[in-house]
């Protein structure tokens, strides 16, 4: 089953790489939405159905933690799983993301394998098994 995904990152190349990593991990992406910060992301979330949000932390206007907080305060948006992909690596910061309700955390730099592992936990294996561990790491190069 296809899922709609929103990628939130102020770096356009990074949004491209994340989208590509999800796709080559075998997950079936339906609609793909992109936002450059948390504020843009909320606008998209309030007007489109999204099944998964993958967000950076450090962005202008509204960062990933603020986005997560706004989503958890909104009854409709609170149920959407949010994965934080960030350069932030301090244990305290990661704990804060998880305490705020993040479904997963991936530190940059990451490999498609890192993305696949987290999405498998959140979305379950893909129907053809390609998103599961049956796919070798060599198949998952960017």
């Amino acid at each position: 089953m296809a899922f709609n995904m929103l990628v939130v990152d102020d770096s356009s190349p990074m949004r491209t790489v994340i989208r590509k990593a999800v796709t080559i991990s075998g997950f079936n992406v339906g609609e793909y939405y992109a936002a450059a910060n948390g504020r843009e992301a909320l606008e998209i979330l309030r007007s489109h159905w999204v099944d998964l949000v993958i967000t950076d932390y450090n962005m202008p206007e509204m960062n990933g933690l603020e986005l997560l907080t706004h989503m958890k305060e909104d009854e409709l948006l609170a149920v959407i799983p949010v994965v934080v992909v960030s350069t932030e690596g301090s244990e305290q910061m990661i704990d804060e993301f998880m305490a705020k309700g993040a479904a997963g955390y991936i530190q940059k730099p990451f490999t498609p394998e890192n993305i696949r592992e987290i999405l498998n936990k959140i979305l379950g294996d893909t129907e053809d098994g390609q998103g599961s561990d049956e796919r070798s790491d060599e198949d998952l190069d960017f």
Partner: protein
Amino acid sequence: MDREAMKEAMKTSISEVLETMFFLPLEVSEAEPDSPLFQMSPEKLKSVSLKFQGRFAGEAVFVIPTDLAGSLTADFMGQDPEQIEDGDVDGTIKELLNMICGKALSLFEAKTIFKLGIPEMMNSGEALEGFFSHTERNIALLCDAIADQLGVRIVVGS
């Protein structure tokens, strides 16, 4: 600040970021002013700076030949070099420095929160001029790739 520990964290971070996400194997060493990278015309270079705050504050600077930045961007995005726009190149090298700096700081002090600023393009002439200044607080590293060199500098303030 333990200068040697920070230098090692920077080296590990640079290698990890460039090899994991850009497939660019390289050797990282202390930069010397007479290295070919620092003899290049600033017009042929792109430079990015990133400020950070935390237990101590500082700034990281990244200098890369424009041609290499273009090919790295094409590889990173999985697109033909002809399809790549200037904005993509700038976005990629900003992200590159963001990842290097964030990873290095978390390797240096895993329990401390450092707040990274937003990476900004900077004048390459100024980047080169400042690369070897503040010697006590400055760590200047040179990354030797197969055919090119990149420079990364971190200066720690207070």
